[in-house]
C-alpha cells in the first residue's frame, strides 16, 4: 500500500505524503479528474488510480491508498460528473510508479506532480465513453 494518505470531506481534500507537510485544497478547486484503468489482468500489471487536476498541481491517488475509498464517494457525486474522464492506459510513466529497491515498479504511487506531467500520458489514454465512474469503481 502506498505511503501517505488522502483525507476527504464534503469541502476539502488533504494530501499527506511521507516526509512532506500535508497539502489541503478545496474540492471546488478541482479543474478536472481522471480515473485511469491501467494495464491488464492478463499481464498482471492492472491497477486503478485517480488524478486530481488543480491549477498549480496534480495529485496522483492510487485506488489502494488510505482514504481513497472516501475519495471515490466524493468523486461519484453528481456535482463532480462534469469534470470526470475515465480512460484506459497500458502503463503509467515510470516516475509515477512505486519503486522497489530503487527500481520503478508496476503500481502507481501516491504523488504530487507538476501540471505538465499530464502531457506524458494525454496521448496514450483511451477514453471510455459509455461508462460512469460508479460502473468502474
Amino acid at each position, binding site marked *: 500500500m502506498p505511503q501517505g494518505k488522502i483525507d476527504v470531506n464534503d469541502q476539502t481534500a488533504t494530501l499527506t505524503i511521507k516526509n512532506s507537510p500535508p497539502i489541503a485544497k478545496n474540492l471546488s478547486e478541482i479543474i478536472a479528474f481522471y480515473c485511469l484503468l491501467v494495464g*491488464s489482468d*492478463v499481464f498482471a500489471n492492472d491497477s486503478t488510480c485517480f488524478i486530481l487536476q488543480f491549477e498549480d498541481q496534480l495529485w496522483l491517488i492510487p485506488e489502494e491508498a488510505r482514504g481513497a*475509498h472516501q475519495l471515490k464517494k466524493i468523486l461519484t457525486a453528481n456535482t463532480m460528473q462534469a469534470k470526470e474522464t475515465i480512460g484506459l492506459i497500458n502503463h503509467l510513466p515510470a516516475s509515477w510508479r512505486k519503486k522497489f529497491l530503487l527500481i520503478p515498479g508496476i503500481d502507481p504511487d501516491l504523488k504530487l506532480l507538476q501540471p505538465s506531467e499530464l502531457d506524458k500520458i494525454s496521448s496514450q489514454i483511451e477514453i471510455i465513453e459509455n461508462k460512469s465512474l460508479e460502473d468502474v469503481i
Partner: protein
Amino acid sequence: MQPQKDSVTVAIPAHDTNEGLNFLESLTAGNIGAGTKMTSFGNTIPSIRQEYKLLIEKFERDLHTRQTKGTQPKELARWAVNERKQIAKKMRARQGGGSQIVLELRDNFKYGLGGRSYENLEKRALKQGIPEIEIPEALLKKATKPNSGISKAAIDGAKFLKHGGRVVVVISITATAYTLLTAPEDQLEQILYQEAGGIAGGVVGGGTAVGLCILFGIATSGWGLLACGVIGGGAGGIAGAEAGSRIYLLKEEYIQNSDIGKNGFEVYDPSKFSKSLQ
C-alpha cells in the same frame, strides 16, 4: 590482430579465444530458441486477444444470468472474482511457461499466496478501510471493470516479434550450422548437447524476458520488445548450453562406470533374462 577499418570491436566475457568462441556459440543457440519463441509469441498474441474478448463476453452474459436469478451478493462476487482469475490464468498459459511463471509470481507477490483469490482481495479491501458490508459490491465492480486486455500496443509488438523472431532464427541457424559442420568429430556429440541445451534455454529465456518487459512496461512494442527477447534468449542460451554440457559429462561418467565402459562390452547373464520373465 589489428581491427579492420570501419569495423566494430566488442568485448565479451572470456579468457581466451576458445572460451570466447564457446560464449558466442551459446548465444547463437540461445537466439535460435528465443527467435522461435518470439515468432510463436507473435502468432499467439492476436489469437489470445480474440479468445480473451470471447471469454469476457461469455463472462458478462453468465454474470447477468446470475444477477437475474437473484444470486446473493457475496456469492456473486466470489464467482466473478474466480472467473476473472481463471480467464487471466488461461490467457497467461497461452503465452508459455516462462511468461506464465513470471506473471503468477507477480500476483502471488502482490496479493499473497493464492494470487487473486476472493479471500486475498477481501483482506486487501479491509486494509483499505472499505466497510465489510460493502466489500462484495466493491469486488464485483473490480471483476467487471474494463481493462485493455491485450492492447493495440501488444498487437503491434506481436508483429515485430513474429517477423523479427524469424530473422533472428535465420541468422542464428547459419552460425550454429557452421559450428556443427566445422566441429572436430570427437567433439561433435558434446557440441550437440550444448546446442540443444542452448536452444531450450533460449526458448525459456526469451519467453521470460518478453513477459517481464511487458509486465514492467519496459518495451511493449517494436524493437524494444525484440531486444528483450534477444537478450533474454542469449542469457538463457548460455545457461542452457552449460546445462547441456554438464548433462553430456554426466552421461559420459555414467557410461564409463557401467559394464560397457569398464569392459568395452556388456557381459550376457542368462539369469538376468530368466528373472525378468518371472
